[in-house]
């Protein structure tokens, strides 16, 4: 098949444009750059994956370990992780935080963004200012801790997502998206007697799948990875989510100096660390391809008036 750099119209027909030397050079540079990028991303990923499969009696450096034959791989780390009650419990807590967090955040962000997108809203500028100011000037850890304490949320999973349920950044993206929707649609619904809530639910939301999925993904990733708030607000260890356990596993580097086995049995701790990193990333890795099509569309549309 002949290579082309594009087509131009001649009368009613499209004619292929023959690539020049400069096009070839440019394409080569782009390909080279992408190949380097691929290596930069793939090597650490592959290193982590192979590390997670290393057997306990493996000795050798990381480079050699990356080329360990698959028939020498050990599944001990995954077996140990999946058989560990603490890991299962932490995974469950993370899922609860993810679901609760995304649902709460979307339920609060969508109406707020919609209200702010209505140009006729009295005091709209002032309301926008109220929302943007805390985005620029962060309230800090101690006041947040005091707030959570006084709300009685210490040792509640809701403490992880409720205080930060609305992200200003996400809200502004969503507001821009709503502003970009044709005003005529809203007007016609209003003329038909719809209230603002009905306009939002019946007219706006069906057109906003892309932005909802995108913002939902943003929220999901941040709640899934949230270590700090869980560390701060959850004293009951049975409520701790995956990032806390992951951190504890990753911190267990000096363990082999003191005990014969680790909490995960015979699997080497380096393999356990790598396997836990890999497994904790799996839900997000699975979610991304399904949401990716909305993701690009949603962020681009949101940026038009951003």
């Amino acid at each position, binding site marked *: 098949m002949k290579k082309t750099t594009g087509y131009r119209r001649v009368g009613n027909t499209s004619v292929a444009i023959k690539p020049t030397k400069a096009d070839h050079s440019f394409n080569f540079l782009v390909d080279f750059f992408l190949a380097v990028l691929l290596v930069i991303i793939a090597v650490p990923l592959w290193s982590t994956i192979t590390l997670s499969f290393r057997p*306990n*009696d493996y*000795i*050798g*450096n990381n480079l050699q370990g990356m080329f360990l034959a698959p028939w020498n791989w050990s599944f001990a780390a995954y077996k*140990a992780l999946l058989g*560990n*009650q*603490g890991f299962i*419990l932490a995974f469950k807590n993370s899922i*609860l935080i993810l679901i*609760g967090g995304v*649902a*709460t955040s979307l*339920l609060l962000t969508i109406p707020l963004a919609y209200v702010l997108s209505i140009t006729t809203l009295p005091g709209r500028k002032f309301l926008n200012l109220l929302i943007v100011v805390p985005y620029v000037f962060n309230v800090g*850890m*101690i006041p947040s*801790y*005091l707030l959570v*304490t006084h709300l009685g949320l*210490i*040792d*509640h*999973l*809701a403490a992880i997502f409720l205080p930060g349920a609305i992200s200003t950044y996400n809200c502004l993206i969503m507001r821009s998206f709503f502003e970009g929707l044709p005003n005529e649609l809203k007007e016609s619904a209003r003329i038909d*007697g*719809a*209230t603002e*809530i*009905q306009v939002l*639910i019946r007219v706006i939301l069906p057109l906003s799948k892309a932005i909802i999925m995108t913002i939902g993904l943003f929220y999901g990733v941040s709640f899934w990875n949230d270590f700090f708030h869980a*560390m*701060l607000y*959850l*004293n*009951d*260890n*049975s*409520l701790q989510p995956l990032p*806390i*356990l992951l*951190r*504890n*596993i990753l*911190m*267990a*580097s000096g*363990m*082999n*100096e*003191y*005990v*014969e*086995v*680790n*909490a*995960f*049995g015979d699997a080497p701790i*380096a393999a*356990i660390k790598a396997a836990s990193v890999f497994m904790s990333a799996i839900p997000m890795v699975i979610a991304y391809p399904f949401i990716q099509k909305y993701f690009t569309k949603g962020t681009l549309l949101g940026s038009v008036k951003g």
Partner: protein
Amino acid sequence: MKKHCTSRIGMATVVLLLSLSLFAQGTKEEVKAAGPTSVELWYGAAITEAGPPPADWVGFKVIKDKLNIDLKLTALPSNENDQDVKIQAAAAANNLPDLFMVRRDVLSRLVPQGLVAPVDDLYAKMPVRTADHYDAVSQNHARINGKSYGLADPGSINMNEGLLIRKDWLDNLGLAVPTTTDELLAVMRAFTFNDPDKNGKNDTWGYGAFQEINNFEAWPGRRLEPLFGAFGVDGTWSLKESEAGLNVLKGEFYDAMVFLKKIVDEGIMDPNWLSYKKDDFRAAWKQGRFGIMREQNAAFAAQANYAPFDKNFPEGNWIVIDPPKGPTGKASIGPYTANYRIYAISAKAAKEGKADKIAALLEWMASDEGYYLLGWGVEGVNYTKDADGIPVAKGLADPNLAFSAPGGQTVTQLRNMVFYNGDIELYARYPLYVTETSKKEMSALTVMREMQTKAWTAQIGSDTLPIPNADLKRFYEQGLSEFITGKRVLNPANWAKWIDEFKKLGGQEWNDKGVAFAKENNLLTR
């Protein structure tokens, strides 16, 4: 349409509110009434990645029945910085738990705020525990403004590292154990160039190390301290009254640098030492890359850790040796400090009259019942005792519940609160075993005991001295490594110039602050 829509929103709101109850699994504040005293304890977990003791842990019941205490446990984060953040946030909200583990520098910030209660009068109320855990050094460790504000339990074992050499390589080459720096150099050269493992390849080096740096063991760090100890400048500081201050400012430090540079320039140290991480270093000695190293007793001799080396080199034989003597006869494996885990009582708990209850709890932990229950679990379930009365993980109905197995580790999470490095726990931790391939009898405890007989430099409290700011630290580490790697020429003139620059950048101030701190806290020795 309007009605339909409103009801949908109403439903969604109700679902959201109801779902919040899903997350409300936490504990509510205790209703104060006649009944057990609630004691909230934030502890340092023994095995950070294992879970907390289960809700039906027998310890909760025993403590309630015997002491009338309702114990609530929270494992602190595994990372010290995270621990500090959690404690400081709770302190800012006046929400500190009754009893909590805390680092000394955080404690010293909490005390002036009146958030921590003094514990001086508690020692007498805990005679057994005080005898085992709190000697004079311990009681002094958390002393601030003349009062003890923390119960300092013994931490990790001191002097549990040693200088090791491949005896089989020495024998292959007909060499004796080196006792001086000159002899050490000769052995390193032979290990590098004379094929000590007789495999016909030029694949070995004399010394192996990696950069392991901390507050009291600055660059080049712990693994090279035996070399610097030969010049009397091991560790970041000298705490001798007559010469107190930063070692880097002493003339002998330059001599030690010249010695290290010679080793590096001759290529008789594993060249990867600047890039090795701990795990790489440990993989390297198990692969037979070098024949002299400083290593920790269990990392070297515990069964699982020694097994790969045993498999690779059944004839291999590491022995613990004395640190080499330098030109003036000085020798040291390196500096050691006294490690403590400080437990503090919040002022709030003391005001609520809980201090005596906490003392009773800690004293019970030091009793035989508490010691074994928290240290190893339930006899017959989590451990059995051997003929010498040492807890062992043998003869159990469910081996997974053994104190050392994944299923049993959660019930021993508080063991650091009862262990004091006594013989029973050391025998249990480091049992005697026979290696699988070479059938050698080994014990990490025997190795440790031998390591402890070697020359060390006592620097109690040096880990609590002021640390430099990030820029000065970088200048220090980068400068020294550049001298060794040849990016800077190491000669007296360049060295003096670099030291001047170091002092100007804040090195002199760091030195003076450290000396003043050491004097204030009685850390200087004669």
